């Protein structure tokens, strides 16, 4: 849900770093945003040119008055953002989305990140470690040079399990295979491509572990106004006041907006 803190923030790029091929970390001077953002929330970056749609990006890290965004350049919109330099202005809408529930009652936690999904889970990992949980990060990418920021998570106190599709680092294969082989955690947090999340949901649901999945989708507005980003939820799991169409429509599922009711959903409420 958009929070009372959601607004347009005028920020300034304080640092731009390339972490890997096509992987950019933008650190922004954004005191209010940094202060208001909870783990798993995101922003809509308003394109400086005004020529493309705004882009949804996870808030990777916050520190004092700084907030950073970590993204892969995959198209026109991310290329425009990747071209920004220190001192440039970037306007953002945020913080947006419900974020992860990191209340910390699970002592042994698995975080599963695939590819750019890593950008959504650092704040969550830091919070859980601080609350005293054991945090294992299962982190998969296509190839070694795309496994970025592992050290950052290790420094934060996570145990690392890395995988690459091509076996150039860590265990070869999918990150979900590594998750399945490992001792069962008490809670799972995950962000990554949809096939990975589906598999995490299967593993979690089959073993009765509660899992929170942060979904990715092509957004229109990114703030709940267009119904372009929906995901089917098991109808019975939807609470009455949260969104009315559930009760008005017959059928065993309802569509929730990923940008508004999510992006984080419980694995057991998704009707995949």
């Amino acid at each position, binding site marked *: 849900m958009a929070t009372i803190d959601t607004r*347009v923030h005028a920020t300034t790029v304080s640092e731009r770093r390339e972490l890997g091929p096509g992987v950019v970390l933008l650190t922004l001077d954004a005191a209010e945003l940094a202060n208001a953002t909870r783990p798993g929330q995101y922003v809509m970056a308003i394109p400086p040119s005004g020529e493309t*749609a705004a882009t949804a990006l996870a808030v990777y890290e916050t520190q004092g008055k700084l907030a950073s965004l970590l993204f892969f350049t995959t*198209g026109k919109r991310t290329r425009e953002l990747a071209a920004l330099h220190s001192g440039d202005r970037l306007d953002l809408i945020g913080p947006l989305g419900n974020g992860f529930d990191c209340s910390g009652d699970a002592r042994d936690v698995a975080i599963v990140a695939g590819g750019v999904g890593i950008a959504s889970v650092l704040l969550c990992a830091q919070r859980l470690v601080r609350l005293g949980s054991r945090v294992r990060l299962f982190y998969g990418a296509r190839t070694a040079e795309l496994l970025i920021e592992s050290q950052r998570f290790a420094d934060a106190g996570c145990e690392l399990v890395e995988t690459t599709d091509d076996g150039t680092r860590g265990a070869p294969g999918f990150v979900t295979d590594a998750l399945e082989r490992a001792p069962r955690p008490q809670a799972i947090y995950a962000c990554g491509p949809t096939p990975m999340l589906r598999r995490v949901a299967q593993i979690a649901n089959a073993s009765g572990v509660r899992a929170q999945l942060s979904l990715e989708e092509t957004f229109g*507005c990114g*703030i709940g106004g267009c119904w372009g980003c*929906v995901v089917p939820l098991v109808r019975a799991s939807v609470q009455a006041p949260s969104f*009315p169409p559930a009760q008005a429509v017959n059928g065993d599922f309802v*569509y929730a907006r990923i940008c508004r009711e999510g992006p984080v959903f419980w694995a057991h409420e998704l009707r995949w």
Partner: protein
Amino acid sequence: MSTVPSLAVRLGSLELPYPTLMGSGCYGTGEEFAPLADLTRIGAIVLKSVTRLPRLGNPMPRIVHTPAGMLNAIGLQNPGIDWYLERELHKYAERPCKLIGSVAGFSVDDYARVCERLAARAEIAAVELNVSCPNVASEGETFGCDPGLTAEVVRAARSTTDKTLIVKLSPNVTDIAAVARAAEAAGADALAVINTVRGMAIDVDAWRPRLGNVAGGLSGPAIRPIAVLAVYEAAQAVRIPIVGQGGIETLTDALEFFLAGASAISIGTANFTDPRVPGRIVTELQAYLARRGLADLGALVGKANQGFTTPHQYEGDEG
């Protein structure tokens, strides 16, 4: 000139302080955009189209970004008119701007019944008839593509309310002037021109359509020239005011529409780029009129067409 130029506009009996409508389906209920835009400086919000029965909408994906625009195929997801009136609409009453209800349907009777119930509500200042939704397996758009059916829908809806009726036309026709005339003759107070343009995108890795619904509606700057021409042609065919739309993002874009013959404009997709766009256009439009020594928007409407006579919907005009 010392007086501030007026941006006020009248659509039938509906008086708006600004000529900027927020496009149906693009502005939610207004609540989503309230923290990001000054709703006191927009003309009105056109609410998401509502149908007689609840609709789940189309399967995902529903949105694809394309060069200079986007395709959408939402499929009119909405809770249906019963739930909408009982549980939703009262929540919108607090908005600091006027609300225009939007009706979509699959029969003449659908349109008339939903229009009647919606228009009866105090929260609703006017009703837009969406006879041009391209995203519901052709049925929705059938009405807007046929002058006879358009007239039937408008006549039936007209008999249910005295509030302003705006008829939203489809660009996916060979002769938009004919549909415009039919809507006017059947009692429309204004026309919205245009709805989205039918389109498709294909995933060449998966060899499949990108949208769950296969076809979608194209919006954004990509359709602006199509929209400007449609407004130009429709404006010459009717005397009622036109709400121009399709890819408006800047003052220049807005001016194109006014000069083509629109009396007001609607902003949809641009809100997804930057929610400050409508506020910026209003400020710049006011400055533009002042700079040119023009008292109101009437001085611009249709001026790209030398034979065009301005409809009377500006403050100070007679009739």
